[in-house]
């Protein structure tokens, strides 16, 4: 499975990538929404995109809106990972088409929990 990690902070891309790789994702990084769109246009077949909000050129909301306009990217799961934590911002992101929302700071478990909710990973114990 491929995951796009979109954040203008190299540090954040490394942290998120470090959480996703052990879960089986091949991670592709992008610095902003436009670079990420270009990667998708060029044929990147990703199942997951973790998107920051505040980025130059094209921000996270712009990326999400662009992706959700296209049928061909219908299966791309969009998770916002951002410091924006006001109620109204979360509502905006979900309305624009984000499937989930992680507020920074997050722990690796928080990301895993969200991926579990979305059915992208399976970490359940059973009896």
């Amino acid at each position, binding site marked *: 499975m491929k995951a796009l990690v979109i954040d203008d902070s190299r540090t954040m891309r490394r942290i998120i990538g470090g959480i996703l790789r052990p879960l089986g994702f091949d991670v592709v990084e992008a610095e902003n929404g436009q670079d990420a769109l270009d990667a998708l246009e060029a044929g990147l077949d990703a199942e997951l995109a973790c998107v920051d909000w505040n980025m130059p050129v094209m921000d996270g909301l712009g990326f999400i809106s662009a992706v959700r306009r296209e049928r061909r990217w219908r299966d791309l799961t969009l998770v916002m990972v951002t410091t924006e*934590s*006001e*109620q109204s911002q*979360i*509502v905006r*992101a*979900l309305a624009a088409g*984000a499937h*989930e*929302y*992680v*507020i920074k*700071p*997050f*722990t690796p*478990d*928080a990301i895993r*929990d*969200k991926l*579990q*909710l979305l059915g992208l990973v399976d970490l*359940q*114990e*059973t*009896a």
Partner: protein
Amino acid sequence: MTITAESFGFVADLVRRRSGIVLEPGKEYLVEGRLRPLARAAELADVDTYVRALRADPRPSRLESVVAALTTNETSWFRDLEPFRALVDHVLPELLAHRPMDTIRVWSAACSTGQEPYSIAMVAADVVPAGRLRILATDLAEDVLERARRGRYTQLEINRGLPAAHLVRFFRRAGADWEVVPEVRAQVAFQRHNLLDAAPAGGPFDVVFLRNVLIYFDLATKQAVLDRVRRTMRPGGYLVLGAAETTIGVDDSWERVPVGRGALYRTPARRAA
């Protein structure tokens, strides 16, 4: 840092037995930091003194507080997911259909800081009409119940398994934290209760959540607890255990109902005469 190796070992053993969480040497910082507020509340000089006092007088409520203090961040919303889906897809619709006029009563036993009972209330919000659901949430430790009553959680706690759509619908920001909205808090009554005692008032219950708490007990006690729980439930009521738990081999009076990859456990339905 005050905690001695011996005290640390005691705490690590306690936490491992009660929660499965392993605190290796090197985690003394964590224990020191998490138990410092408890030591202060007990008006003891430092954490090591607190632990030594605890060992000398190991009351269950105090042991629970220590375990809670060290495992709080591990509590998530909608833990294991499937029981909550089962609640919405099967259990609640069935109960509503069979008893159209009654209140549905749910007991969340060992509710800790409240994520479980509030998760139940949230997931039931679109299924059960307002006012027809009562949730009783119990735990051994008064301090976690206080936290649960306030319904106030840190950003880190809110990030654990709570769907964003539920966050914006059922929570409001409170300073740096998030607080459960009053309509949801109103559906849950928190009460101190020891599972080794008689069942709490508020039954008979249609659904009981008894998750990841039987592991604390030996077989005889497990059986006693399950027996008491069953007696406090309506016929055809549902018991929800932890994902890795089962009544099989412990108590054969329950009907195992497969749900997803797990199961719920049902009390015998009353047969018409």
